[in-house]
């Protein structure tokens, strides 16, 4: 199946802004995070089709996944 992956902020560096990827049916957000090479402890907000989602969420064909880094400074 095909999904669109959008990366934000520091996650774009050396990777991409947005990319359509071919992934196995039922692939989870975690799997994509690993494939793209994002450190899991740096992950902040995850959105699937614009709604908040957890890392174990299984994706469906045509989904758009957006991943933001964890921002906590003050």
């Amino acid at each position: 199946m095909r999904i669109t992956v959008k990366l934000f902020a520091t996650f774009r560096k050396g990777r991409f802004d947005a990319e359509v990827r071919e992934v196995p049916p039922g692939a989870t957000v975690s799997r994509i995070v690993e494939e793209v090479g994002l450190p899991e402890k740096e992950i902040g907000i995850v959105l699937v089709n614009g709604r908040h989602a957890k890392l174990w969420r299984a994706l469906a064909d045509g989904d758009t996944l957006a991943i933001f880094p964890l921002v906590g400074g003050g």
Partner: protein
Amino acid sequence: MEDLRAFLANCARGDLLPWADQVAAADRFHRTVGSVEGAALELGLLPARYQRNRRTLSTAEQLRLFQSRVVIVGAGGLGGYVVEELARLGVGTLVVADPDTFEEHNLNRQLLASPANLGAPKVEAAVERVGTINPAVRVVPVRYAFSRENGAELLAGAGAAVDALDTVTARVALARACRDLGVPMVHGAIAGWYGQMATQMPGEDITPFIYPSGNEPKGVETNLGNPAFTPAAVASLQVAEVVKILLGQGRCLSRRMLFLDFLEMEFMEVPIASGPASRDPG
């Protein structure tokens, strides 16, 4: 009180009260300039320092700000700018909590930091700064870290709280305390070119959305640091939210959050699912 009112009415130029007369009234009637400010606003007189507010904030609204108490948790990058702007706006009481002292690496961005006060408590610098820019505003310095145990005492009587903390753990604890006490809270966080913010109104719980895992105490700011403009920009957005909360105006950033990218100059609005506070966003 009648004498003070008559004195103020007599000094006013139109409905503006010049600063020199506010100070003269305080001297003559043995009051603080803050107390004189309250009396003037109640009479419908606007301290002249706020005259450029008046097309945006009425005298009645200025009185409401003067009667408000805002708790700012953290007096670092975000907190320094938040204190500055709330004081210039004329919010009457600012409770500023931070256990830290200034260090050299704060100088690149923290409004209250200067070479002269390295090693001094941040909350003392807040008292000094506000005393310099708007002596009518009272600062209550609190030199300890926010915790679940002291949250209720710290937040008592607050019209709004500002999350200007620097760890995820403390931010989540503050949001929970504010939710328990029904105090509106404005969250802001920064890292390098990036920031995020959201407003938690009473009855809402933003923590599962702003920090979904909640396991990591710090974010990418550990690697990125923070330049001067990121805290200034995010703090200003937080202050705009606080003013709207105190005055019941406009539309707050409730049930949505903003992710700010100053490098690409992209501001992303992300919806926060509505529904019961305990609902799992997954």
